[in-house]
C-alpha cells in the first residue's frame, strides 16, 4: 500500500499542467472559472488543440488514436484538465459512442466514424431519454422499422444535451415491439441533418439552453447505420454507461471550485471581516474539503484497482463516486452562494461584455447553483445509484 505517485507520474502531471497552461485559450479558462457557458466554437477550438497533441481520445485503444496511458495517467490527466479548468472532451463522442463503435461496430463503421469523432468533425449527441422514459430507460418507445434498405424512425427523445450543435446522434430505438422491454432495442446512429429531425431547445432554470427535445418524423436512415446486432442495443447501452465510472466523481471540478470559494471568501466581507474568517463558514468549507478528500481517495482506490486487475469487475467502491461526487459538487455551489449572499440576486443583464466589471464574477454564481441541481439527476439519478448499490453490492 503506497499513496505516493511514481517519479514518472509526477513528471507526467507536470507535462500535462504545462501543456494546459500554454495551450488552453485564456478566455475559455476564465469563462469556465466563472461558470459561464462556452460557445460551440470555443469548445471545438480547444478540442482540436488537444487532438493535435494526440490527447483528444486518450483512453481509446492505440490503433484508433489512443495514448496507451496507464489508468493512473488517465486519472492525472482528467484531474488536471478539470482543475485547470478546461473543457473535457465531448463525452457523447469520445467516451460514449466511440467505445461502442470500436468495440461492437464493423470495420466500415470504425473507419467512417472514429477519426471524425477524434477531430470533432462530427459533434455527437445522445438519444437515450424520452419524455416517458427517464430512470426507467428500457421503457423507451422511439421505434425504428425496417423498410427495404432503410430504417424508418419515429418518436421523440428529450434532455438531449447540446443537440443544437450536433451533427450526429446515437439513438436507442425499439426494433422489436413484441420482445420484452430490454430485448427489442437497437443502437442506431444517424445524421442530425436528416429530413424529419427537429430540435427544440429547453431552457433550464439557470436560464441557459443545454438540453433539447429531439423529434423524429419518418426519418430515413441507411440500414448499415445499425451498430452491432439488431435487438442487442440494451447491452451496448449498459456497456456505454458503465464505461465512465471514475470520471463521474469530478474531483478536479470540485477542487477548482473550492479554490475559487477560498479566493472569493477572502475578498467578500461579512460582519466587517472577510467571510473566510467566519469560523462557522470555515468549518463548513473544511467539512466539504474532507468529504472531497475521502472521495478522491475512493476514486484512487478504484483507479488503482482497475490498473492492476483490469476493468472487468467493477470495484464496489465505484458506486460511491456518482453519489458523493454529485453531492459535493452541489455543496460547493451552495458555498459560493453563501459567500456572495445578497449579490446572488442580479440577473446577468449585461452578459459577459465586461461593462460591469465589479459584478461580472458574481453573475454566474446563482445560475451555477441552480444548474448544478442536475448532477444528482443525470447519469442515473442518485436514487437509481442507491438501487444499484442495494442490489449489486449488498444483495438486497
Amino acid at each position, binding site marked *: 500500500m503506497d499513496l505516493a505517485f511514481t517519479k514518472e507520474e509526477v513528471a507526467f502531471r507536470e507535462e500535462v499542467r504545462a501543456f494546459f497552461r500554454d495551450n488552453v485559450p485564456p478566455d475559455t479558462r476564465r469563462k469556465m472559472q466563472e461558470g459561464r457557458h462556452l460557445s460551440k466554437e470555443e469548445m471545438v477550438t480547444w478540442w482540436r488543440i488537444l487532438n493535435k497533441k494526440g490527447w483528444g481520445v486518450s483512453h481509446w485503444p492505440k490503433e484508433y488514436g489512443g495514448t496507451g496511458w496507464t489508468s493512473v495517467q488517465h486519472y492525472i490527466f482528467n484531474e488536471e484538465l478539470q482543475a485547470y479548468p478546461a473543457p473535457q472532451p465531448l463525452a457523447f463522442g469520445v467516451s460514449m459512442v466511440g467505445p461502442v463503435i470500436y468495440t461492437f461496430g464493423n470495420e466500415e463503421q470504425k473507419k467512417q466514424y472514429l477519426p471524425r469523432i477524434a477531430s470533432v468533425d462530427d459533434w455527437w449527441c445522445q438519444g437515450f431519454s424520452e419524455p416517458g422514459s427517464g430512470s426507467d430507460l428500457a421503457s423507451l418507445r422511439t421505434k425504428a422499422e425496417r423498410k427495404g434498405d432503410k430504417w424508418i424512425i419515429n418518436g421523440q427523445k428529450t434532455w438531449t444535451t447540446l443537440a443544437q450543435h450536433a451533427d450526429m446522434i446515437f439513438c436507442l430505438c425499439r426494433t422489436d415491439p413484441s420482445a420484452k422491454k430490454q430485448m427489442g432495442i437497437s443502437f442506431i446512429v444517424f445524421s442530425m441533418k436528416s429530413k424529419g429531425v427537429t430540435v427544440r431547445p429547453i431552457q433550464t432554470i439557470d436560464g441557459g439552453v443545454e438540453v433539447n427535445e429531439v423529434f423524429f418524423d419518418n426519418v430515413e436512415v441507411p440500414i448499415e447505420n445499425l451498430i452491432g446486432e439488431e435487438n442487442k442495443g440494451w447491452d451496448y447501452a449498459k456497456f456505454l454507461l458503465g464505461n465512465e465510472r471514475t470520471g463521474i466523481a469530478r474531483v478536479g471540478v470540485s477542487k477548482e471550485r473550492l479554490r475559487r470559494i477560498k479566493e472569493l471568501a477572502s475578498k467578500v466581507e461579512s460582519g466587517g471581516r472577510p467571510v473566510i474568517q467566519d469560523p462557522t463558514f*470555515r468549518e463548513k468549507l*473544511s467539512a466539504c474539503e474532507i468529504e472531497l478528500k475521502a*472521495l478522491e481517495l475512493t476514486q484512487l482506490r478504484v483507479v488503482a484497482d482497475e490498473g492492476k486487475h483490469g476493468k472487468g469487475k467493477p470495484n464496489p467502491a465505484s458506486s460511491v463516486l456518482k453519489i458523493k461526487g454529485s453531492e459535493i459538487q452541489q455543496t460547493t455551489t451552495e458555498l459560493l452562494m453563501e459567500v456572495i449572499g445578497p449579490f446572488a440576486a442580479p440577473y446577468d443583464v449585461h452578459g459577459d461584455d465586461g461593462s460591469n466589471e465589479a459584478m461580472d464574477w458574481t453573475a454566474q454564481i446563482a445560475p451555477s447553483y441552480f444548474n448544478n441541481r442536475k448532477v444528482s439527476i443525470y447519469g442515473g439519478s442518485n436514487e437509481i445509484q442507491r438501487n444499484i448499490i442495494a442490489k449489486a453490492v449488498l444483495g438486497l
Partner: protein
Amino acid sequence: MDFDLSEEQRLLKESIDGLLTDSYDFEQRKKYMQEKGGWSKAVWSKLAEQGLLGLPFTEADGGFGAGGVETMIVMEALGKALVLEPYLATVVIGGGFLRHGGSAEQKAAHIPGIIDGSKTFAFAQLEKNSRYDLFDVATTAKKKGSAYVIDGEKFVVLNGENADTLIVTARTKGERRDRNGIGVFLVPANAKGISKKGYPTQDGLHAADISFTGVEVGSDAAIGNPEDALDLIERVVDEARVALCAEAVGAMDESLKETVEYIKTRKQFGVAIGSFQSLQHRASDMFVAAEQARSMSMFATMAGDFADAKERASAIAAAKVQIGKSLKFVGQQSIQLHGGIGMTMEAKIGHYFKRLTMIENTFGDTEYHLRRVADAGGLI
C-alpha cells in the same frame, strides 16, 4: 500508488481473522467480559504467540518491524470482533512511546514484556478539564534531587485498572495550558501514592480514574525530554487516532453486514423488510459512509509516515472527522434498521453502536478535529 496488501500483509490478515473467528464470537466475548479485569488472558497469550503484540517493534527490539498498514489490518480485525483486550493501550500507545521516545534502557526493560504478553500498559492523559487538548496538563512532576514527584488526577484511563505500567503526562514547568514544560513518565502501576478507581466503560472495556499523590519516580522514568515532550505525545496520539479509525472501519463493516443480513431475513407484511426501497436506500447510504471512512482510514494510515508534522496532523484530523461522521450514521442506522431488537443488550448490533460511539469521543471528536482542520486552513 497502490492500495493492495502485500503477500505478507494478506497472510497477517488471514492469521488474525482466523484467530478471532475461532476464539471471539459474541458468546465467547461475553465470557471474557466476566473474567477478572474484563478481558481474556488466554486470548492475549494467543495474540502474543502469533507475534501480533510485537508487530510494530524493530527486529533489534525483538519485534517484526511492521508499519502502519499492519497496525491497520490488526485494528480492523479487532474492530470487527469487538475485541476487549488492551491492544491500543499497550501495543499502539505504550509501544508507541517506547519506540518513538524511549531510551535503549527503557526499550530493553519494557518491550520484551509487551511482545511476550506478560505486561500491559495504560496511558494516563485525560484530566478533568483538559478534554481533547493534549497540552492541557495540570498534573505536575516536580524535580526532587534526581527524582520526580508526580501529583494530580487522571480520568478514563483505558486499561488503567489492569495495566502493569502507566504512561503519565505531567507538567515539569509552566502553566496548565502551556505547550512547553510537559513530560511523559513511565510509572509502575503499584507505585506508592497511586490510587485507582476502576470501572467498566459503556462499550464493555475497562478504565480507571487514577490519582497520584506524591508518587516518586527516578529520572530514568522520563520518556524523551521531560520538559518538552508535546511533539512526542502528539505523534503517539496521532498513531492512536489512526488505529482507532481502522478499528471503527472494522466495526462499521461488521455492523453493515449484520444489518444487511438482518433485513434480508426479517419478515413483515409477508416479505423480507430488505425488499422495501426506503430500507435499501438507507443501507446503500450506510455502504457509502463506510467506504468513505475506509478511504480516509487508508489515507490516515499512509499519512502516519508524512515527514511534515503539520500535514500529518491535518490529514489524521480529517480522517477522524470522516470516520466520526460515518460511524455515527452507520451506528445509528444499524439500530434503526434492526428495529426493537437493536435496542436490546442481547443483540450484537447495539454493542457495535456503543463501541463506535466511544471511538468518536476518544482523542478528539468530530467537531474538535473539524476545527483543527479549519484552523490549519483546510486540506486544499
